């Protein structure tokens, strides 16, 4: 299972190694480590975000080890949504039931609308909306986009998708 953890480390040498030790001991596969030196907390601690693949049952043991080493574990949880995509919709977004449009994505179980900004220049004029969709993987992002394409056709909305960085 993929988990993300937010830790806070003291700004002294060797802390990161100390934090990673219990993960190694529990055979966790580290996917990413982001060390925010520039964003110290008010207590002078350095936030670190880890994403790891590990057996969820080992989480308690990792937590206990971290605590014993004096490292603060702020949060640990399942990292469900690994991919994100930006989409813009143009048209009569509110009149065509924005709640329903969002629900078509959210009800999939593998993707959710995580951010939404709507601009309405005036009555009877088309509105524009920015949506950030997160999903469990790349394939699920593509499925979410194709759902929006269908919704766009039904509701006569212009769906502006991002260009794919890689060739198909």
């Amino acid at each position: 299972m993929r988990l993300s953890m937010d830790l806070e480390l003291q700004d002294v040498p060797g802390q990161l190694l100390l934090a990673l030790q219990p993960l190694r001991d529990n055979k966790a596969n580290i996917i990413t480590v982001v060390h925010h030196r520039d964003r110290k907390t008010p207590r002078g601690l350095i936030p670190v975000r880890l994403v790891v693949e590990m057996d969820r049952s080992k989480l308690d043991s990792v937590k206990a080890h971290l605590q014993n080493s004096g490292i603060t574990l702020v949060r640990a949880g399942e990292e469900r949504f690994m991919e994100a995509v930006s989409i813009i919709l143009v048209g009569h977004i509110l009149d065509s039931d924005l709640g329903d449009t969002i629900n078509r994505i959210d009800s999939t179980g593998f993707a959710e609308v995580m951010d939404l900004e709507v601009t309405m220049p005036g009555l009877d004029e088309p509105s524009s909306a920015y949506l950030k969709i997160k999903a469990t993987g790349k394939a699920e992002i593509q499925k979410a986009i194709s759902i929006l394409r269908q919704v766009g056709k039904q509701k006569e909305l212009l769906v502006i998708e991002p260009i794919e960085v890689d060739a198909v």
Partner: protein
Amino acid sequence: MKEVRVSLIGYGVVGHGVVDVLNRKRDMLKDLGLNLMLTSITDHTGTITIDDGIDVDKILRERTLANVATSSMKGKEAIAAIDSELVVEVTPTNIIHGQPGLDHMEAALSGRKHVVTSNKGPLVVAYSRLKKLAKDNGVMLKFEATVGGTMPLISLVERTLTGNTIFGIRGVFNGTCNYILTRMAEENIPYSHALSEAQDMGIAEADPSLDVEGVDTAGKVVILANALFDLNIKYNDVDVTGITGVTPEALSLAKNRGYAVKLIGDVPALTVRPTLVPIGSPINVAGTLNSAAIYTDLSGTITVTGLGAGSIETASAILSDIISIYRTKRLNA
């Protein structure tokens, strides 16, 4: 010195550019061993034929051939009657039926004359037929100027990137749409305002529908798909959405998140639609520029950008096609 008798069909903006460029580059062409003699020009009013080459200074001042024509021959009749080995076809384009360019190209290729063109219509309508006609008659059909104007794309893929597998090409292929979207984003003005500005600047036509509804871009997608991907498709195979529905608010929302909105043509997906392009992407070009990203197996992604239209710029692509015909060493020759 190889002497080549050239006939020009079409004497509008691009036709004038071709005459000008052939004249300007006369010495350079001779250094390459090519004596290109423009021996006839044909437009809707008639034909001027001068056996030892047309006096360029005299002709460039004329908007049409009405005052200088030496014969009333037009179109395919002129192509068949005049002794030349290369025809430059630059008549106005029609993406629906391809005429009159299609008849011109068929007449030239059947008469064993090479054809170099900037005219998309005939290629969109009848690419495979024209290509086969050229092959059967042992001549070449070159059309770099039809996609991306002066921006090298077809020759880049066919010659420079030869040996690579091309996975896809995505790009901005219409300068008018790109200008309108750029101005909407810069000034936060509505589509209709940016369009009328483009019309005043001579960037958009009085009837802009072929550009803004994505028809022109789709024509280029068809040409690229047929010429570089061997797909044998027609215009109706392309899923097309133009830019008329894009709002300044959509552009502003995109910009705040690090994106520009561009009309992107995609081969082999065969789509034309407004698309979010990261602001830092090399294909995010402004104004009337065109750009294309070519996705390859060996060379990674190659991006080219350049002026997509203009008299001299289009003529430059035509000139490079002409030269390439005489510099190509055929492997089986």
